């Protein structure tokens, strides 16, 4: 537990030190959303219509791209090797990395999402659901993505593989997340979608760290 907290603290400190990095996925998120009004010269109505999907897709892409850094540095500088050989279990290491990665890359994005949503004319009623769906969905994206990264992190040319590995698991999250916002923008209740997301959330968050730890062990032994 002690070393778990130290790890989380280290990661947050590092993220703070190189602030830029933490804003990275935030900027990318904003970018994707910003480019749309520019690129499709759309009417306000059209924008509002695609807003839920757009925000969710932007969040998904930002989350996927930030994954790359999840274990790469620790792998290349030998830190991962050290943890694999320590008397602590790799599971607590995995948990710590996943948690701090989510805090660094996804939390800022959730905080800023309402602003973008409003600028895309999403109805105010849907903002709450947007935030809840992101709060449930983005940890899932991080944790599922973590498995993919752990599996590919030892490979030199891993970047191509990753989307292929994680995307099939991302799509359900996207569907439920986006449709939750979509229906609540149309004035309906999004409870159904949110329950499913919550279920996936619990499942993912309990099982993924085991898978991540096992995959890391495999990667490190190459």
């Amino acid at each position: 537990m002690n070393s778990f907290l130290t790890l989380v603290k280290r990661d947050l400190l590092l993220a703070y030190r190189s602030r830029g990095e933490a804003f990275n996925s935030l900027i990318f998120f904003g970018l994707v959303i910003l480019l749309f009004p520019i690129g499709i010269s759309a009417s306000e109505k059209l924008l509002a219509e695609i807003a839920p999907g757009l925000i969710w897709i932007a969040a998904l892409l930002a989350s996927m791209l930030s994954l790359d850094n999840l274990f790469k540095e620790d792998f290349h500088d030998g830190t991962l090797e050290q943890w694999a050989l320590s008397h602590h279990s790799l599971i607590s290491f995995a948990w710590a990395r996943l948690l701090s990665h989510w805090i660094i890359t996804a939390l800022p994005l959730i905080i800023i999402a309402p602003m973008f949503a409003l600028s895309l004319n999403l109805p105010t009623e849907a903002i709450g659901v947007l935030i809840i769906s992101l709060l449930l969905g983005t940890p899932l994206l991080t944790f599922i993505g973590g498995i993919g990264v752990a599996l590919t992190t030892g490979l030199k040319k891993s970047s191509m593989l990753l989307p292929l590995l994680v995307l099939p698991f991302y799509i359900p999250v996207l569907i439920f997340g986006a449709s939750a916002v979509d229906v609540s923008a149309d004035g309906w209740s999004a409870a159904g979608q949110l329950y499913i997301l919550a279920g996936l959330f619990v499942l993912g968050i309990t099982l993924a760290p085991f898978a991540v730890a096992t995959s890391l062990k495999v990667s490190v032994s190459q």
Partner: protein
Amino acid sequence: MNILIKWYYRLGAPLWFYPLAGKLIPWVAALFLLFLIPGLYMGLVTAPADYQQGESFRIMYVHVPAAWMSMFVYLAMAIAAVVALVWRVRMAEIMIISAVPIGASFALIALLTGAFWGKPMWGAWWVWDARLTSELILLFIYLGILALYNAIEDKTTAGKAMSILTLVGVVNLPIIHYSVVWWNTLHQAATVSVFDKPSIHIDMLIPLLLMATAFKFLFLLILLLKMRANLIEQDVHSGWVKKIILDKQAEMEKEHD
């Protein structure tokens, strides 16, 4: 030519520049006020209200000079960038990095005032029109230059990298200026031109020109202040700063006697 080069290198020497800038600052500040006060008075009080736009057009006296300055500052930076890259004059780099936040502020003011003006005129804060977009891009370029300079720890390298980026960004200036000609947009076409008779009433024009001149001096004023600050900050460890501090101390002691 020779004199020019000599002048250059003298201006390039911090020890020479620092006190000179110090002496200039009060004069520039005075000139700024000299143009600002009548400009504001005429613009806000004596100029006639526009028959089409009513009183809201008065925002022009901030919007237009700020928009002009956002481009003028960039042009000045680009010239300094050439100087910095070709002749390796460090003062030129200091000038650029000092000018960036000022230019960015002007661009931001132009954008904000434009948006406030656009709401009554066009019924929207913002449209993706060529001039508006290219001005927004200008703001981003300013921010990019600033971020790049701050990201590189070694300031010699940072200065060079920044100069290159500044030069690359120059392509945006003609786009901003001619956007109203090249594309049909919502935005006003040029009202003031060096060659043509201005298409604006003389009572409106004079305060506009006064304000534009005042903004130029404002730029110069802030630039000198910032350059002095940046110089001291970068060179704390170097000899000339110590010399200036010693001189200052000697001066103060003399006054005490």
